[in-house]
């Protein structure tokens, strides 16, 4: 699983984007969509910029993302760029 999907806030946004495709695409394709959307947030400049602005409490400019106390069960730190390697 992509590291960004461990963050409930991110996972919720991505799941909402994938939801319309449930019942239209097979499960393997839905997994592909989730993973690829997370990768876009991590490596696509435009998407990453919007992500930083939308979640300023979670993502630092350095690329280290800190998850605040208001997000339960989230990892302490996640990478906003180059995730997964």
């Amino acid at each position, binding site marked *: 699983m992509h590291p960004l999907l461990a963050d409930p806030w991110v996972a919720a*946004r*991505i799941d*909402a*984007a*994938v*939801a*319309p*495709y449930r*019942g*239209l*695409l*097979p499960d393997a*394709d839905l997994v*592909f*969509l989730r*993973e*690829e*959307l997370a*990768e*876009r947030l991590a*490596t*696509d*400049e*435009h*998407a990453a*910029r*919007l*992500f930083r*602005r*939308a*979640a*300023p409490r979670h993502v630092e400019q350095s690329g280290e993302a800190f998850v605040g106390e208001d997000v339960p069960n989230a990892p302490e730190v996640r990478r906003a*760029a*180059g995730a*997964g*390697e």
Partner: protein
Amino acid sequence: MNERAPSFLANPEAANPEIERYYQQGQPVAEHVLRWMGRRLGSAVSFDDMRSCAEEALLDAVRTFDPSRASLSTYVARKVRWAILDNVKRERRSRRALARATALFCAERLSTELASVPDDAGFSEEDHVSALDRLLEAHALALALGLVSGASTPEEHTSRAEMAHALRHAVGALPERERKLVERHYFQGEDFDEIAAELGISKSWASRLHAQAIQSLGTAIASRTR
């Protein structure tokens, strides 16, 4: 990526410190994209072929990089992705990976176009969250459209039949030029640039129409569940 220095870096006369610096900085980016693409496309594509494409793309990227137009990491990542995907589309033996490659191609084309558009997401955190949601919605559609149009086996066509039906319905409601662009490129397999020429529009305008079409289709499909 490759421990050996490329020949143009090894040749002192041809060596350019700036290009060499770009190469060193771009290597980990190319490596990341290569490994990610390897996982996304699976065993249907030769990893050695992908590595070869990635290395060529990295060399091309560092030679043509313009710092005023994009960051090095974005430029290298984009070049490497395009090179790998283009190779998958050309190689018949990679047919099993064609649908995913087409999906990534479609998302990449959308990313390229959106990167050139100034941000207009408002000022509040709520505005930014809304813009992020719309972007994810558009990218999800781009990936789904690519999966449908790149389907190459009977099993893939069957499992994505409902998606194909919903997409064709939504495409039919697009403005004429956007509809023609999407239908001809994704459902009839015509070359994007040739369609633009036949429609009498520039490549950049065609890319803009493509992005508009993808965003409209994303909204249309999302509205089914609202």
